[in-house]
C-alpha cells in the first residue's frame, strides 16, 4: 500500500514569490508558526487548521480557495460513494 495522495494542494510557494519573494520564515512569523510547518504545508505533508489556513490567505490578501485547492479525485471517501 503506497502513501495516500494529498487531498489538498496549495499555491503558497507561488503566492510567496508574487509577494516580493517572501521567505518561508517571514510567512511563518506572520502567521505564528514555525518555518518547518510552512515547509510541511508547501510540501502537502500537513493540512493546516482552518484558522491557520485563513491566516495564510489573509497575509496574501486573497480568498482561501486561491491558496488551498481541494482535490476530490484523491479523496478515498468520495471514491467509495
Amino acid at each position, binding site marked *: 500500500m503506497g502513501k495516500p495522495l494529498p487531498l489538498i494542494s496549495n499555491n503558497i510557494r507561488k503566492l510567496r514569490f508574487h509577494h516580493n519573494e517572501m521567505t518561508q520564515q517571514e510567512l511563518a512569523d506572520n502567521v505564528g508558526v514555525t518555518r*518547518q510547518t510552512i515547509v510541511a504545508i508547501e510540501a502537502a505533508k500537513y493540512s493546516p487548521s482552518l484558522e491557520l489556513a485563513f491566516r495564510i490567505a489573509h497575509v496574501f490578501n486573497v480568498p482561501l480557495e486561491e491558496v488551498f485547492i481541494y482535490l476530490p479525485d484523491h479523496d478515498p471517501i468520495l471514491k467509495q460513494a
Partner: protein
Amino acid sequence: MSIHERKAIASIIGTIVISIAYAAYMIQRYPVADWYSADVFRFWGAYFLILIPVSIVAKIIIAIVFSILNTIATGEAEPAISDERDQLIDLKATRNGMWLFVIGFLLAMGAVVIGLPPAAMFIVLLCGGIVSDLISDFSQFYFYRRGV
C-alpha cells in the same frame, strides 16, 4: 533532516543509554534472596522511584546538550514556539506510546496471573515503559518525516 527529527533521534539514543546504564548500575544491588522476599519488592520499588527523577534530569541534560551541539553544527536555532503541527504530532506520538504502555501493563498483570515471580512482572512493566518511550519518540520522528 529537520531539527525535530534530529531531536527525536537524540531522545531515542538518550532513552536507550539511560535505560542500559541505570539497569547496569542497579543490577549490582539486586538482593540475593528468594523470588518472593520482601527485599525483592523493596528493590523494585526503589528501582522505579529512583528511575523517574534520574530519567527526567538525564533527558533535560540531553535536550540542553543537543540544543547546544545542534546550534553549533548547523547554525539553526531551536524554534521558540510549539505550533499546531508540533502539538498534533506530540499528541499522536503520546497516544502511540500510551498504547504500548497499556499493552506492557496488561502483559505484566498476565505474568502475575500465570504464576511468574513478582520480578517478572516488574521487568515486563519496566520494559513496557521503555518501549512506550521509544515508540513515542519514534512516532515523532515518523510524523515529522512522513507528514501528519
